[in-house]
């Protein structure tokens, strides 16, 4: 049976065009961009073209885009770089309780090792941050606010523009983790009003292990990676030329296809949500009904646990994801679902389906059918149904 891949928030396949664009830079044009002979210059030109493309796509200037080794590095770079460079101004950072671990763990590190104070803002039942809460949290020690653009688990899109107003008013730097939004919904650094923005290629049909950090001109930030003078001294290390070219190709394709694709994904998404609600009792949708990524479906299925649903789906060649404790080595359910205020059973019974450009309506219908069967089977062995049902 053909595999049905519904975990595009975890990673996407590289677009065949992306791989094609990368290939010449492995063996043919392999020169080091830092070399001064014309052969290295070829790859330097490739990197600069890529930079211009990425910059243009998010409404930035070329020299405001720094390539990194992925979204996690971009987040680490942004937070640690700004925190250390602005330590004298203050030691307070504001973020939210539903950030990706790349932001949250970096914050914990800064708290523990750097003596920084971090405010973790709560979210409402839909996963939305209240801009007023951001405003209230700002003190005269605050040097950075970091609020993700779109959440990777529940797909909720934050009111970044509104939050930005308060942050800018206070003259504070503003970072957004846009790893899940870039290439999927419009992202413009000026419209969002952010100073730093993280991108990861493998979430938009680019290769793994490459990303970018947008840094608004004039932003005080330390390098995260020290060494050579690559990226104008802001990120040392020999440039991952094929990866960078792959990222820019993915961006180019997104520019062409994003709008159409988003419309189509919203169709599929709503078809899946409707289908699940209609065919399975006691299903709840997590996240926001409207401020939601086009490709994200997150549901809780009462009385059954996520990993056991996932494994059953896997046996039928369907790839999805769960926020259940049982799928994490920490044995705690998703911090995002907990932040929504979900009762633990519902957090444990969550499933995430994230759709992509190759999914079809038939696949969606099959998933609904298969999951109904699975849930019936698992509920038959669930002690919760009797206790609560």
């Amino acid at each position, binding site marked *: 049976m053909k595999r049905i891949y519904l975990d595009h*928030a*975890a990673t996407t396949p590289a677009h065949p065009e992306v791989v094609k664009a990368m290939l010449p830079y492995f063996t043919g044009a392999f020169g080091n961009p830092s070399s001064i002979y014309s052969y290295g210059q070829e790859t330097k030109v490739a990197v600069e073209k890529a930079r211009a493309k990425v910059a243009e796509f998010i409404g930035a200037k070329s020299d405001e885009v720094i390539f990194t080794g992925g979204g996690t590095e971009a987040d680490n770079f942004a937070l640690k770089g700004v925190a250390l460079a602005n330590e004298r101004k203050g030691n307070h950072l504001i973020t939210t309780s539903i950030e990706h*671990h790349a932001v949250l763990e970096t914050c914990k590190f800064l708290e523990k090792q750097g003596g920084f104070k971090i405010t973790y803002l709560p979210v409402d039942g839909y996963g939305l941050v209240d801009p007023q809460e951001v405003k209230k949290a700002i003190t005269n020690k605050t040097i950075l606010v970091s609020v993700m653009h779109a959440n*990777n*688990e529940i797909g909720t899109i934050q009111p970044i523009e509104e939050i930005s107003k308060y942050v800018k008013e206070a003259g504070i730097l503003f970072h957004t983790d846009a790893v899940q939004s870039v290439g999927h919904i419009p992202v413009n650094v000026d419209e969002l009003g952010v100073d730093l923005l993280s991108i990861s290629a493998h979430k938009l049909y680019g290769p793994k292990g490459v990303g970018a950090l947008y840094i608004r001109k004039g932003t005080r930030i330390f390098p995260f990676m020290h060494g050579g003078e690559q990226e104008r001294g802001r990120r040392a290390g020999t440039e991952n030329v094929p990866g960078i070219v792959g990222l820019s190709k993915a961006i180019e394709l997104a520019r062409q296809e994003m709008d159409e694709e988003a419309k189509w994904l919203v169709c599929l998404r709503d078809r899946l949500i409707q289908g699940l609600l209609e065919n399975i009792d006691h299903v709840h949708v997590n996240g926001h009904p409207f401020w939601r990524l086009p490709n994200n479906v997150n549901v809780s299925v009462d*009385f*059954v*646990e*996520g*990993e*056991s649903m996932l*494994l059953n789906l896997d*046996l039928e060649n369907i790839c999805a*994801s*769960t*926020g*259940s*404790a*049982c*799928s*994490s*080595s*920490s*044995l705690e*359910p*998703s911090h995002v679902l907990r932040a929504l205020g979900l*009762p*633990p*059973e519902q957090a*444990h019974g969550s499933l*995430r389906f994230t759709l992509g450009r190759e999914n079809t309506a038939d696949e969606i219908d099959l998933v609904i059918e298969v999951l109904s069967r699975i849930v019936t089977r698992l509920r*038959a*062995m*669930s*002690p*919760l149904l*009797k206790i609560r049902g």
Partner: protein
Amino acid sequence: MRGGPTQYSEKVMEHFKNPRNVGEIENPDGVGQVGNPVCGDIMELYIRVKDGIITEAKFKTFGCGAAIATSSMVTEMVKGKSIEEALKISNRAVAEALGGLPPVKMHCSVLAEEALQSALEDYLNKSKGELPSEKVKSK
């Protein structure tokens, strides 16, 4: 949404796919319930005992693949065993019978052992002292 190292053995997957002894026993001789929804694991284990021998065991489980497989395995293991023998079934024995469990899933086998012990205790309490009860208390 993180993933742990949950590559299950074939045996685990086999029990997960075709769990043995799913269900409840009406008027069981012993029943144990362990775990709680907050942790994402609940197991109920029912036993029927005749002449000191466990003749039937059933379970209901809310939990991950390993929780279901260990429930299934423990019910298989106790059938035909005496109470004394059943009391000796350890979580390791369950895990081993399943061809091993990933480290983060060992707690499921603990849960299975506890469910069994709790059902046995329930049986012993009901039937009052057919066996030296220190054995149970010492648990």
